[in-house]
Each structure stands twice: as structure tokens, then as C-alpha cells.
């Protein structure tokens, strides 16, 4: 049996290679994976797939009474239609709100200096409130009859 295995090596010479797994390749930390997921969440909720398939313009435009064309930021009256910019702006707002809560969680560490804690609290609360209320304002632009009758 050994003779059979040694046959190829009568013809071939093994090169003197030292192959090792590169040292920079290791399993990523949970928070790194979480950051990647946040980036993909930003893209998907911003409607990137919709943008790729339907190819809407980045900003819409209408012509007003004088014939001049005015830019339109939000595609109105349609729930499932968007321009590229409005999609990315809105998903940024979602992410801002989410990050506000994450920052708030970080402020509970007992070993934080006082100034840092106050700044983090302020940023966190501001992010949450801005994210939530601006999203509401955006959907009101899109659907003028939102929360009306």
C-alpha cells in the first residue's frame, strides 16, 4: 500500500511551502457584526432594493404656474413609492432613534465621569426625540391625510 502512495512522488517533487492561516483572520466580535447589521438595516429600510429595481429619480420635480421646475422631495400619495433621497433620509432617522436608545443604555455604567454622562444623556435623549418626531413629519409630507380623516 505504501508503494502505491509513493508512486506520484517518483514523478512530482513537493514544493517547500509553509501555509498558515493568516493571523488577521479571526472570528469577528459581536459588536462588529452588530455594526455591519446596522449598516445593512440602514440600506434596506431606505429602500435601496426599490431604487435598484424601479430606478426612481433622486429628487422629483414639478412645474409651477410660471413654467419653472421646482424640486419635490417626497413622492406624495403613494405608500409604496419613493425617491432615493427621501428613502435614505428616513432610514437615517430610524437609525438615529435606535442609536439614541443604545447611547442611553451606555449611560448607566457606574464608572462614567459626570460630564461624559450628562453629555451622553443629552445626546441620547435628543437623538430619540428627533428620530421619532422627524419620521412622523416625513410621513405627513408623504400622506397629507395621515391621522386625519
Amino acid at each position, binding site marked *: 500500500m505504501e508503494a502505491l502512495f509513493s508512486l506520484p512522488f517518483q514523478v512530482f517533487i513537493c514544493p517547500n511551502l509553509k501555509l498558515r492561516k493568516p493571523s488577521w483572520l479571526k472570528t469577528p466580535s459581536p459588536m462588529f457584526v452588530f455594526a455591519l447589521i446596522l449598516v445593512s438595516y440602514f440600506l434596506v429600510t431606505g429602500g435601496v432594493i426599490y431604487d435598484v429595481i424601479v430606478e426612481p429619480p433622486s429628487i422629483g420635480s414639478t412645474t409651477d404656474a410660471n413654467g419653472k421646475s421646482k424640486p419635490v422631495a417626497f413622492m406624495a400619495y403613494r405608500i409604496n413609492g*419613493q425617491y432615493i433621497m427621501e428613502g435614505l433620509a428616513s432610514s437615517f432617522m430610524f437609525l438615529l432613534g435606535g442609536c439614541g436608545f443604545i447611547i442611553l443604555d451606555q449611560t448607566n455604567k457606574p464608572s462614567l465621569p459626570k460630564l461624559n454622562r450628562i453629555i451622553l444623556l443629552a445626546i441620547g435623549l435628543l437623538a430619540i426625540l428627533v428620530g421619532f418626531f422627524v419620521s412622523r413629519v416625513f410621513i405627513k409630507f408623504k400622506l397629507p391625510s395621515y*391621522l386625519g380623516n
Partner: protein
Amino acid sequence: INSKQLKMLQSKVLMRHPMLKWFLMSHEKQSYVLQLAILSLAMILSFCTRLFSVIRFGSMIHEFDPYFNYRTTKYLAEKGFYEFHNWFDDRAWYPLGRIIGGTIYPGLMVTSTALYHLLNTFNFTVDIREVCVFLAPLFSSLTTLVTFLMTRELHSTGAGLFAACCISIVPGYISRSVAGSYDNEGIAIFCMLLTYYFWIKSVKTGSLCWSACCALSYFYMVSAWGGYVFLVNLIPIHVLCLMLTGRFHHKIYVAYSTFYCLGTVLSMQISFVGFQPVQTSEHMGALGVFGLCQIYSFVEYVRSKLTKENFTALFRTILMFSLGCFALFFAVLTLSGKVAPWTGRFYSLLDPSYAKNNIPIIASVSEHQPTAWSSFYFDLHVLTIMFPVGLYYCFKNLTDHNIFVILYGVTSIYFAGVMVRLMLVLAPIMCILGGIGLSSVASTYVRNIDLTRKEDKKSKKSADNYPIKSEVALVVVCIVGAFMMFYAQHCVWVTSEAYSSPSIVLSAETAHGRIIFDDYREAYWWLRRNTPPDAKVMSWWDYGYQISAIANRTVLVDNNTWNNTHISRVGQAMSSPEERAYPIMRELDVDYVLVIFGGLSGYSSDDINKFLWMVRIGGSTPSGEHIKEHDYYTPQGEFRVDKLGSKTLLNCLMYKLSYYRFGSMYTQTGQPSGYDRVRNAEIGNKDFELTYLEEAYTTEHWIVRIYKVKKPDNRGNLV
């Protein structure tokens, strides 16, 4: 006072004020009663919020697909299971017919019929239609319960209660489970969450019993919805992820092996699924991971028996050999066609541009469009903000079951982004992760609240580096409460305005009050009462199920859209002029043609607006090669129905059937006769007569128009 005197005092107080019993219960009992109360309120709420359309329009089945489910449920209730299982329907897809027994997911019908028979044995003689209408709200209550149980396993009871409250009113789920929407998704979400709950239990305990329950509920899921493919790929991905992160142990081995073996055998009992679990690529992932589990466990076993050097040598050779063999084997199977590649509908999830370029029917369904940001916000509101928070808390303490939830969330975000319809699959995990996020935030901050009086606080020295701790905590908890209130307001508004329309009955607000347009049912009942029972009706495929169920007549094409060539033939008939459409209609034995027209009432989902799809699908097969889409546009590339419209469009059958006699109608003040209120134009071809058809019936608001196809003359074409 000692304990005996205390007890006497307590019983005296209780006798005079029995309501104070609450305060004398132990904390565990209090919290248990609170949990029960909140959960029951959430379940009742989820049932009630889905009843808007029943209150406004009455108890009827909505949309298109539910009518098919209703018709098959009636058949099952009347004729029994064996007749249902072997049913060949010759009244749809004339002349081809449809094997209903083998092309249907029977879970929904069997559930309704079981409930119907159960109620009738107790002499509650409800009609089968009522059971069908109210089945989805009932199952949504059960979904609320299962979500609570699942989130409690994943995190804590508080998170479970938050998640249950969120899912009871989340619009993404309500849209497909409102009362009257009798569709597979109504029970499928319940089955899916039940399967996931049992899976998490079996991963946590490693017990055979829970894994068997998981397999049984997987069987119920497979019988209910084609979306079981998502489950059968998510669970193997979870196991694979656990292997890669080094968390694989005997509990997961037991759980997955039991689930895969029992689940696959059970899923093959459904005739529609048949042998797919061993033949199609969509199921190969599960098989692969099953094999990998066995190999991994065997390797671990061998490693525990051998010395280190022997083991590494053996391991390397076997790994390389087996990987090579397996890859070769799999490639041979795929290339030789034994293992079918991913089918169209599922392939378009992986490559979203596939449907747009290759299969116009899939691309034309509005539910299959990709999702814009406003659909996310509209269907989920504050949960879009809480989803990353929940993910963060899951990543903070990674456990085996948290990894499952993370994978579920990430994959369903992607799929919901590709297809609007799959927002339904995203809604439960958004609620679960949102519940986890909200509960973690609330519980962290409620701990900081210190409601003792000001004088006591001064004596307690609060940590110097955390000023106004209690006030900030109060603010945060109030924000969480306010978010939930805004969420509730949004969800109820969305349910009431957007998702409670039966589609078969339309309503509009005018200065004189509310008008109801019941034209569809009027036309179908006219067909049912005034045409011979074996009459064949040609219409576009959208209305096939409704015509079969309500009018009880044979149709040519319906919403199942399984035969593109047949639909293309109907499209060719609609797009051709009358002389060329008549031979097609004679070939297909058509007696009546039904078109939907919105020009008089302003109803915008009519056949003229869908006409370009008829042209595209009609021109997509060899017999329709003469039909080219650009013939129907003006030279400038516009789709117009007025004088400037293309001659091909103004003379085709669909145009003539929609606008017959419309040229003499005055529709709007200040506009000439024949003004189309949807296209906002005066029609170009007004006074024409039909040669081969005659008008049979037009409904009150001209929404549905039925024409009779004339028989050929006795003495040939003297025209």
C-alpha cells in the same frame, strides 16, 4: 403588635373592604394576575381591532384569493375530506381544468371545517361563511399568546408582554389577517411562530418531546402556507451559525436531527409538497446541515477517543476527501436535473431583478414590488426605531436562542425589502425585538427611579457622578410610554383607513354622504341567475376566483396563474381587434366576456389601467408575436385613450368593450360626452357598434360590463 393580632386586623379590614384583598396578596400573585390581565386584554384587542370592515360593510369575504379558499372550504365541508383530496375542478382554466387536491395547501380549509363541525356539534349553527370570515382574527389572538410565550423564553416576561401588545395591533400583520381576509397567511403566521417557539424550547432543553412538538407544528405550517420554505431554511442556518461560532452541543444535535427527520417525513404527506423536500434546491440546505450535524458529532466522538496526532491526521484526510466527493455529487445531481434549481418565485427573492426581466406575471403583481421606506414606517411605526435597540440587547448577551432571533430578524428585513408582501413575515420579529428593546430600556430605567420623599433623599448620598438620576429615569420611562401611545394611535388609524376595505365593495364620500358601490356582486349574481349553468366566462385573471365562487360559472383563467400560455391567449384576445379576437373566443368556447370599467365612477383599478399588462403577457408567447407593446402608444410614447391615441389601442377589443355606448354619456359637468374620469380625457373612438358581441349587462355605476359572444351565422360570413 404580634402576628396573631395582625392576622385578626387583616381579616377585619377585608370583611369591610373586600377590594383591598389586592394589597394583601404576595408580590408573585399580584404580578401573575397583572400578567394574565394584560395578556387577555391584548388578545381581546387583537380580535376587536380587525373588525372594522365587518362593522362597515357586513360579514363578507374580501379581495380575490380568499374567494377561492372559501369555495374550497365549502366543498370540503359539504363533501368530506376524501372528495376534497381527489377533487379535479373542470370549472376553472377551461378547457384544461385544475387538480385542486394536489395544488393546494389544505391547512386553512381543514382548520375552518374542523371549527365549523365543532361548533355544529354543540348546536351553534353558524354558517361556514361566518367561520371563514372570523377565522383570521381568532388566530391573531392565538398569535398574540404564542408571541408572549416565545419572547418570555427568549428574554423575560416583561419583554413578552411588550411584544404581545405590539403584535396585537401591528399593521403589517393586520393587513393580511383582518376579518374577511380568509387567506393562508392568517393561520400561517400563528403556525410559524408556534414552530419557532417549540424550536427555541428544544434548543434550550434538548428534549425529544419539544423537538417532536416542533416537528408537528412544522407539519401544520407546511399544510398552511408555501412560505414554510423560509422556516426550513432559517432553522438550518441557525444550526450552521451555532456550529461556526463553536456553540454546537448535544442539545442542538438532538433538536435538529429530530426536527429534520420527523418534519421532512410529515411535510411530504401534503400532496402539493410531495417529494420536493428531497428534490428541490430550496430544501437542500436543510439536508446539507443535517448531514453536517451527523459528521460534526461523529468527529467530536472520534476526537474524544483518539490521541491528538492520530486524530489530526485522520481528520484532515477524511475532511478533504468527503468535501470533494460531496461537492462532485451535488454538482452532478444539479447538472443532470435530478435536483431542481430554485423556482421562479423563490429565485426572485435572491435576485430581485429576475422577475422584472423574465417573468412579467410575477412582476405585474403589486404585492411583489420591492419595498419603499414609507411601507416600512406605515406598517411598523415605532418598531422601526426599536428594532436596532432589540438587536443591540441581543448582541450584548449572546446565547444560542438569541442568535436564532438575530438571524430571523436580519433575513426577514432583507426579504421584506425585496417584496412588500413579505412585510408580514417581518412584523412578528419586529414586535419581538421591539418588545425586548422596550422592556430592557424600561426595566433599566425603572430601577433608577427613586420615589422616596425629598427629605429622605437628602440624607441618602447619591453617587456624585450621576446627578438627577431619578428625574432622567422618569423622563425616559415617560418617553417609552408616550411611544407606545403614539404607536397605538397610528395602528388603529392605519387599520381603520387603509386595511379594512373589502375590495369587492367600494365606498366613496361625497357631498351627499357615503355611496356604496356594490357593482361586483351585482354583476356576479346577474351571471349566476341569468346565464346557463355551463356558460364559459372570459375575463382577465384577476376576477377568476370571484366569478367561480360567487357566480358559479366556468372561467378560462383565474388568480392561480399557473399556465402562462393560456393567460397569454386571453391577453391576445383582449388586445386584438374584434375580427381577430372572435376566432380566439370561438376556439376557447367563450360565451360571455366580463370587463371592469372605471371611467364613469372614477374607479382606477379597472381593465384599461391594467391593459398594458395584457399586451405584455399576450405578446410573450409565440402565437402573440404580432402584438407589440409600442403599437399601443402614441408616436410620442404616451398611453392615451383620446383622439391622439394609437389606432391599434382605439380599435382593440378591450377598448371597445369598455367604451361601448360610453360616447353618449355625460360624466362630469363642463366636460363633453364620453369623458373618462380616470384617464381624464374625452375618448377618441366614440360611436361604434360591436359585430361579434352584444351587450348583456352593465351594472349601476358601469363598473362591471358583461357581453355575450354571438354564435356564428347559419350561412357563413355574409358580411
